[in-house]
């Protein structure tokens, strides 16, 4: 019988993409499939013991200048309100964040039917978060707050 991992890997390959499959936990039957699309590497996790559940993830690097701003976790939480079906997680000493969608379509066949829509959803959520993180208008707001305070003689 074909494994869940191989079923999904064959589907992605049939759609034109090279797939790198590796076990994450052989005893539990957990595997990771890596593939590229639109210049971004995505990871799909499959669970042999739970054939109806999958995760789709991708990582985005945060530019050096934006890493020290302190509000990136809050920014991700704000974007999470907009994309409640997507999880956002800071990683690698805040140098990148990961967007993940937990999928429970019920079967590998159902998963593959909406696969690219779900990949697009994860990508859109990640792109939105990047847009918010590199948005410098917050700094402008901070400057305006200082100027207002300065003009009132509080500084």
């Amino acid at each position, binding site marked *: 019988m074909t494994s869940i991992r191989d079923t999904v890997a064959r589907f992605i390959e049939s*759609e034109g*993409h090279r797939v790198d499959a590796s076990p994450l936990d052989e005893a539990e039957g957990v595997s990771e499939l890596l593939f590229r*699309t639109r210049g971004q590497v995505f990871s799909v996790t499959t669970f042999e013991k739970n054939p109806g559940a999958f995760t789709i993830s991708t990582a985005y690097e945060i530019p050096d200048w934006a890493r020290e701003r302190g509000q990136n976790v809050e920014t991700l939480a704000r974007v999470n309100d907009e994309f409640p079906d997507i999880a956002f997680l800071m990683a690698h000493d805040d140098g990148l964040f990961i967007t993940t969608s937990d999928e429970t379509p019920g079967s590998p066949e159902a998963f593959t039917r909406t696969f*690219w829509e779900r990949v697009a959803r994860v990508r859109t959520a990640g792109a939105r978060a990047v847009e918010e993180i590199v948005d410098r208008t917050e700094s402008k707001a901070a400057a305006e707050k200082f100027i207002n305070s300065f003009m009132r003689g509080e500084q």
Partner: protein
Amino acid sequence: MSDALTPIEGALEDEGLFFTRDDDDDAYRVAFKSEGDRYFVVAYRDDPNFIMIGSGWTLPAEVDTFDALDIANVLNVRKKFVKTALWEEERDVLFTVELCVNSAEEVRPNFGRLLDVLRDTAAEFFEELRDDEPQNGSE
């Protein structure tokens, strides 16, 4: 042995995509899929500066060709790089990026962008067609 489309093969490798070659006496051809959609790249043996990247789709039977032409015209005005054309007899719509280059190596770093714009143009074309469809029950 390398030829006019060898850099395109490199670009497809960069993108993590499978591809096949289908050369003949007139042209070099590469075919590939991305997210399940089919694309091609063509370079003519007698015109080493010309490269075409494209995708083709069959128009649904219920689509009015004049509506499709209108949308194609709007996209041709608005979109960078991409030419949208209807082949009326075959009822096909073709999206192509046609470039004049010294070498396909020039295309390689921009291949992802060109693929995106092809994909987006096709998506917009069919979205506009759907928006133009008369709603059920309406006059």
